[in-house]
């Protein structure tokens, strides 16, 4: 970033604040008299579990929602935003947790959407492209400005989203989970960008479920729980334990590898599997990878974005057909089977993006849970309502979903509970092998540890579990074995006594991270 400072004033003074802000929809109170300050040229991190009201507060600050009561003070003046563009005009911009890009447009067009560079002869595409290239260079990301956003991986899309917010020259930048789809290297780059922004006087509000990561860059911390601020403090006064204690009120523990049960026969054997790249079918995203997983064993696959983890799992589950190699389930060749046939034989996948690939938003919680096991409650031609209810009730109890019951709308659940629905749907099919692609993405620590506990319990009953993660901590949580992917191949394999540094070195990340 080479621009000059865009904001003057004392570093650390309050530039934007929410005063007694409440936001409710009918009887649902998302925020209750919240006070929140943003400091000039510093990072203020908002911590809280899913559903604590973080995103709601950020949407109030950025003009997406209007508060039910309370006021927003910008540089000493009370302001009232009618829309997000009002806030943007005053220099407040937000990077949303859910991507808000137009997938059918190019990176360049997305970055300049709504504020195209106009000349007499029309839009100056060349200039837009030049600026996009500069932004991508700043973010150290090799993305061509003319690539369509839909052709980018999730993490790259997030980079574009960040680039767009940077290009507006905001004085207050709100980042809602900007790193959830980024690899460790990309997070490093983002942090460098954040430091640059700070030195230019830009104030940053940061939200992340990666607590340790957020601690690296934050200057102030505010903890939100059930719509109220439970604690606030400067960086020097806080620690990881302090955050977690205020967030959930109990200890942060993702568990340890389950022991005391028998590790059985090989349940899944992948033999020299090659998987085509989504963008370029000629290229292999996964190059002749072999892996075997035993019943009762938990294997974690770690790797950077683009290492091929998702392609690997999707190919095993049958979404993508292999370029070469074979897949065996308990000795049986399943390579040519459909997804449905693989599910029937006991091989299931919990996908990475639960909104896009996991849930049917128009269906109830119960219908989502039973979707993969319709055969189990169909007798002859017709489905049996009572059998289905039994199945759903059992799944809700087994997976510990917090819901009013099977009839509730899926959108009414928090992210963690939605994730449990997707996992519960797959466990209801009585699988012998379960693959989970980033099962902890975008869910809070409480839900994370519950998900990991579910997997441990499954393994103790003889389930073979394979999960991927982008957090080294989560590799070390419950996995018996850790496989590291690097550029489509296995670069290392460890047992659970490995150190974080060894894992990161094998994945191609800087050891300094």
């Amino acid at each position, binding site marked *: 970033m080479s621009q000059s400072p865009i904001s003057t004033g004392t570093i650390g003074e309050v530039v934007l604040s929410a005063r007694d802000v409440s936001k409710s*929809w*009918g009887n649902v109170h998302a925020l209750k008299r919240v006070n929140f300050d943003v400091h000039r040229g510093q990072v203020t991190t908002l911590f809280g579990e899913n559903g604590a009201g973080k995103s709601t507060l950020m949407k109030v600050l950025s003009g997406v929602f209007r508060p039910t009561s309370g006021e927003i003070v910008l540089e000493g003046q009370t302001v009232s935003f009618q829309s997000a563009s009002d806030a943007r005009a005053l220099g407040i911009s937000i990077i949303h947790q859910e991507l808000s890009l137009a997938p059918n447009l190019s990176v360049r067009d997305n970055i300049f959407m709504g504020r195209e560079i106009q000349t007499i002869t029309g839009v100056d595409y060349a200039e837009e492209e030049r600026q996009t290239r500069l932004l991508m260079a700043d973010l150290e990301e090799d993305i061509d400005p003319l690539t369509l956003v839909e052709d980018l991986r999730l993490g790259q899309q997030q980079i574009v989203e960040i680039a767009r917010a940077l290009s507006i020259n905001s004085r207050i930048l709100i980042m809602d989970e900007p790193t959830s789809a980024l690899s460790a290297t990309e997070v490093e780059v983002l942090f460098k960008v954040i430091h640059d922004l700070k030195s230019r006087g830009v104030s940053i509000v940061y939200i992340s479920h990666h607590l340790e990561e957020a601690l690296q860059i934050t200057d102030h911390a505010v903890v939100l729980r059930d719509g109220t601020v439970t604690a606030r403090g400067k960086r020097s006064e806080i620690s990881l334990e302090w955050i977690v204690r205020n967030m959930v009120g109990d200890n942060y523990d993702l568990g340890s590898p389950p022991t005391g049960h028998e590790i059985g026969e090989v349940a899944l054997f992948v033999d020299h599997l090659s998987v085509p790249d989504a963008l370029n079918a000629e290229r292999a995203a996964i190059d002749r990878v072999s892996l075997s997983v035993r019943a009762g064993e938990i294997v974690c696959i770690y790797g950077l974005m683009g290492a091929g983890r998702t392609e690997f799992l999707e190919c095993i589950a049958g979404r993508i057909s292999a370029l070469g190699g074979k897949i065996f389930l308990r000795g049986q060749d399943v390579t040519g089977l*459909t997804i449905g046939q693989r599910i029937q034989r006991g091989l299931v996948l919990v996908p990475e993006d639960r909104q896009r690939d*996991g849930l049917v938003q*128009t269906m*109830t919680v119960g219908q989502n849970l039973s979707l993969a096991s*319709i055969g189990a409650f169909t007798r002859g031609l017709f489905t049996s309502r009572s059998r289905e209810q039994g199945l759903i009730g059992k799944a809700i109890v087994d997976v510990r979903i917090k819901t009013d019951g099977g009839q509730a*709308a899926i959108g*009414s659940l928090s992210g963690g509970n939605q994730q449990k629905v997707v996992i519960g749907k797959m466990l209801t099919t009585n699988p012998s092998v379960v693959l989970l692609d980033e099962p902890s993405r975008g869910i809070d620590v409480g839900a994370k540890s519950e998900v990991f506990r579910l997997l441990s319990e499954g393994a103790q009953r003889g389930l073979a579990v394979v999960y991927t993660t982008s957090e080294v901590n989560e590799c070390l949580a419950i996995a018996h074995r850790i496989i590291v992917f690097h550029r489509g191949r296995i670069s290392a394999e460890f047992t659970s006594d490995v150190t974080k540094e060894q894992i990161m070195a094998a994945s191609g990340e800087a050891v300094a991270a």
Partner: protein
Amino acid sequence: MTDTSPAQKRLQPGISSGGFDLGRLLLEGRAFFALIAIIIVFSLLSPFYFTMSNFLIMSSHVAIFGLLAIGMLVVILTGGIDLSVGSTLGLAGCVAGFLMQGVELKMFGAVLYPSVWVVVVMTLALGALVGAVNGVLIAYFKVPAFVATLGLLYVARGIALLMTNGLTYNNLGGRPELGNTGFDWLGFNRLFGIPIGVLVLAVVALICSLLLTRTAFGRWVYSTGGNARAAELSGVPVKRVQVTVYVLSGMCAAIAGLVLSSQLTSAGPTAGTTYELTAIAAVVIGGAALTGGRGNVRGTLLGAFVIGFLSDGLVIIGVSAYWQTVFTGAVIVLAVLLNSIQYSGRSKRALAGNGNSNGKPAAPQQGAKA
């Protein structure tokens, strides 16, 4: 925050739900109340409207649209659209008419007169074939549903015109000495005083309703329309479902074609022109979402009755045909307006229940499909 509020629950559309709530009743039952209002208004305006014979006549008109609309509903539930049903109806009528005239076998120098049940089966097979072509184009060749069925709209109409040279087949009654009588039974006869066409509609509606609510296939249809990617990963054979719904829609159109040509005892190549739009309107008035995943047979039937009773009522009280078009259009727009109120209300409430705004439905492939 993880709690669900009753507001979200009650707006979950679907198969069954308990409880009583006036607001929900008015919104969800809007097609029903519209129908009641139409009957009351026209009964006040015309002494002939509120009579048994008139209701039966109107119902046999509704039967045609109703059959098309039910096929359309099944397609729309998967997030697709079938613009070819009007043409399929016309083509089915022409093929039935052609077969009833007798098929000349030059080789044997004889004319074959198939009996009526053979004609019916062959016509249904034709409807299924048109649907299968639609379905395969859409599911396996990734042709957008709008374009594929638009193409079939033209092709089917063109074939009907070619077959008949633009003329109409009359005399579908058959002759006793040829053993092919009975074609007019569908359109003219009554069972327990009810026109056969209406009974056919009732049977088709019942079968489709059972199919959608009580079978695995029904669940596949709803999940494909709700989120095809998630359905696929849950083992739903999405492509097969897509082909099947177009086949069902084509068969419904063929049935409607048989009923219509039987009612008229003639089959013209232009029968059913723009009926696909009426069918879509009925589905929408019935509360289904064009994006897929929401809707049911009961609503669609009500939608068909609203359109049919409204347009027949306007004829009875002598409103000009031009005004009828305006009224029908206004009703459709109003219905879509209420649909968007219903569904946007739902997602806002879902959002409220969840600070992380996961209420946003994310099904990117749907936009591309429509």
